[in-house]
């Protein structure tokens, strides 16, 4: 059984604006699932649906097999959710905040909370309302991590954090959380930080799921091709319909394509680009995002993916 199973999920704001359209994805237990996409693509809405904070118009969301409409996974105690725009009680001190929520969580780890507070350099006597944006996010993160959740949902957890803490968070906390079996689903724009830890990726664009797969399969599936050749060769060769994210500048052509395409075989490439230097590389997260999610004015990513 997967930690999260989303089937044909549709969601409309105020029954009008379509925020999610037939989204399907699976997050295996113990995975660190990265959810990326342009602003307004529907990442936060999808996480909120998974957390049971929004009810799907159609389709289903199951967390550890249980329908989130019937029982909120947060209330069931299997999930914690750290929202980007969460408003912590401003008049409370951090110590009061911890004292307030600790009894609500069966597995609240006071020692972990203290250690996180120290690591994040948070003063327990300070009122939450006086914290900077970054400190506010750290406090929210502390509240999400200290209960030792089975499933942790994080929406833009790195917002406002300094580089040291980001690094610490990514390499230390997320890694150790995975070691203890916690499944993590994280939506972020911070691709550099995500790339080092996620093992599954979902790309969402214009309310639709472009791709949802393991990083391993994605890296095996796509190749970034860099061609160095005289301009006339590049012009003569033209562009293949299966090429994505084409960039051409002078003698250099770069594009991404399905690695299984026969046209990417070195011999075929040499035939198409006579005398050219051709290099293949695994696409980065940024390349996958910009290519698959598409830029403004690009064709629908779903149409572009072979």
């Amino acid at each position, binding site marked *: 059984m997967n930690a999260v199973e989303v089937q044909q999920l549709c969601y409309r704001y*105020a029954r009008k604006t379509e925020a999610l359209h037939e989204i399907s994805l699976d997050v295996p237990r113990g995975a660190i699932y990265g959810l990326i996409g342009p602003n307004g693509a529907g990442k936060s809405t999808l996480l909120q649906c998974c957390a049971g*904070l*929004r009810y799907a118009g159609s389709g289903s969301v199951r967390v550890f097999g249980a329908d989130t409409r019937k029982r909120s996974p947060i209330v069931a105690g299997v999930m914690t959710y750290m929202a*980007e725009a*969460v408003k912590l*009680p401003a008049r409370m001190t951090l110590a009061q905040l911890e004292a*307030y929520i600790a*009894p609500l*969580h069966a597995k609240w780890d006071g020692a972990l909370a203290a250690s996180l507070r120290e690591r994040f350099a948070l003063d327990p006597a300070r009122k939450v309302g006086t914290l900077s944006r970054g400190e506010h996010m750290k406090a929210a993160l502390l509240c999400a991590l200290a209960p030792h959740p089975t499933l942790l949902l994080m929406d833009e957890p790195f917002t406002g954090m300094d580089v040291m803490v980001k690094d610490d968070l990514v390499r230390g906390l997320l890694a150790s959380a995975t070691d203890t079996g916690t499944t993590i689903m994280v939506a972020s724009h911070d691709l550099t930080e995500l790339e080092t830890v996620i093992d599954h990726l979902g790309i969402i664009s214009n309310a639709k799921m472009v791709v949802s797969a393991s990083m391993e399969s994605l890296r095996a599936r796509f190749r970034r091709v860099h061609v160095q050749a005289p301009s006339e060769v590049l012009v003569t060769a033209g562009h293949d319909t299966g090429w994505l994210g084409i960039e051409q500048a002078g003698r250099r052509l770069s594009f991404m394509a399905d690695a299984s395409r026969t046209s990417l075989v070195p011999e075929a490439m040499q035939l198409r680009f006579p005398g050219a230097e051709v290099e293949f590389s695994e696409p980065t997260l940024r390349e996958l995002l910009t290519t698959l999610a598409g830029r403004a004015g690009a064709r629908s990513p779903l149409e572009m993916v072979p």
Partner: protein
Amino acid sequence: MTWGGQVRVVFVKDLQQVWWMLALLAAAMVMTVVRLTVTQPDIGDSFGWYDTLLPLLILWLVTAVVRSDPPAVSTAFWATQPLETSAVAVAKLLQTVIVTGLVIGGVTAILRWWGIAWGDVPTTATVTAIGTMTLAIATAVFAALGANGRGILVGLVLTLASLLALGQWLPVSPWRLSGDATRALWVAFLAADVVILLRLYRMREVSLQWQAAGLIAGAGTVLCAVAASQASSYPMTPGVVAPQLSMTVDPIPATVKPFTVTLDGLVTPAEQLVIRDATIRVVLPDGTSRVLPVLSSENRYAAVSAPPAVRSPGAAPQPRQRTLRASSPLNITEWTRLRVPGARVTFDGTIVEFAREEQQRVPLVSGVLPPAQPGLQRELQMIVGDTALLATITSRWFMDQRARTMPTALGMSTDLEFRLVDRATRAVGERLDAQSSGGFGTLALPGIRISDTRAELRPPQRLLGSASDTSWWSAHEIAIMALVVRRVYRVHAETVVGR
């Protein structure tokens, strides 16, 4: 954690957050208690801006409590914690109980100071409790609407506008509910408020329909509370009395003419009669009809045209034939249209009969009078050296539900009558000329009404001069006579405009 445990955790958290607001509310309540007991202000200073302090504090506090954990906001912190939605809503409602408890504590102290027996306190305190709960729960519903708390502003504006509209519309509306029906509607709106609040906490996105329902329920609760506080509850006499009904023609030409009906054939020993909640229905020969509300200067209560009874002091009133007139002002065009031959006129209303009873007999000595009834304090001040003015009597009293049946609650100024009593013979004698002034207010919050009156007593014409003599004073007493409700009954009468 159990559901009850969750309620406790949220409730304690809120208490820790708003304790200083509760302390402010408690301080305001203590000030109210002191003001209405130890340092009683003069009439006219009793009720003013100060009375808005407690409601405003309650409004502020309840809004803060609800907005600290707002419903239907997916980024609200409570929503990311393992909390049942109903537990959060109930914890918020419990804060309204705390607020109500504070108010009841203060009210009880005031009532006890004013001599209300412990046994009578719960009745009055219950009215205050429901009034306070109404304000607090309606505020909670308003505060729960919208993602940014704009609901509280919209709700308050809507409520105030509705109150103004109700004040204009109700007096001329034929659709007046009885006191019991208004109170039943009030309770229904309160229940709806609670259901809507629970529902709002369950919802992830509040639709326009639910926002409208919240606004209507919240405003409706306050409106019903106000309407119920003005409605009277009488022990109704079963059955319907059907006196004769006739039409009178106003001989004075005017642009605004009263459409008047006269009720004949009421035989009663009552000394005052009041028509309440009455309507005149006119069905024209062509089948069209018009319902006219019966108006008076007090809006809700029809003018009394029955002359006061004249009887010997101390003698029991005798039944006598009464004639009551009820009218509705119309412009001349409408008046002419409705008064056509063959039009059928129906009158329906309630009649309250009052009889005068001796309430208290007091010597002509300046000082605080012994309480004639719980919650009533009177002070007599004899006037020295003024032959025209004998004394002044100031009264303040707290009216509970039962006291609403008193004529003063109906806006009647002839509530009290003062008669001279010969101390030697104990005989009740002449009536003193009394000029009364005063006003109504509420005891800090809706529920308990306070009445202040000041009566200037003048001796009868034949005693002018002698009544300023202190030896004459010691030979006399004053009997204070009050009107009390004797009977309340429905009246139905019909007639046809003559050809």
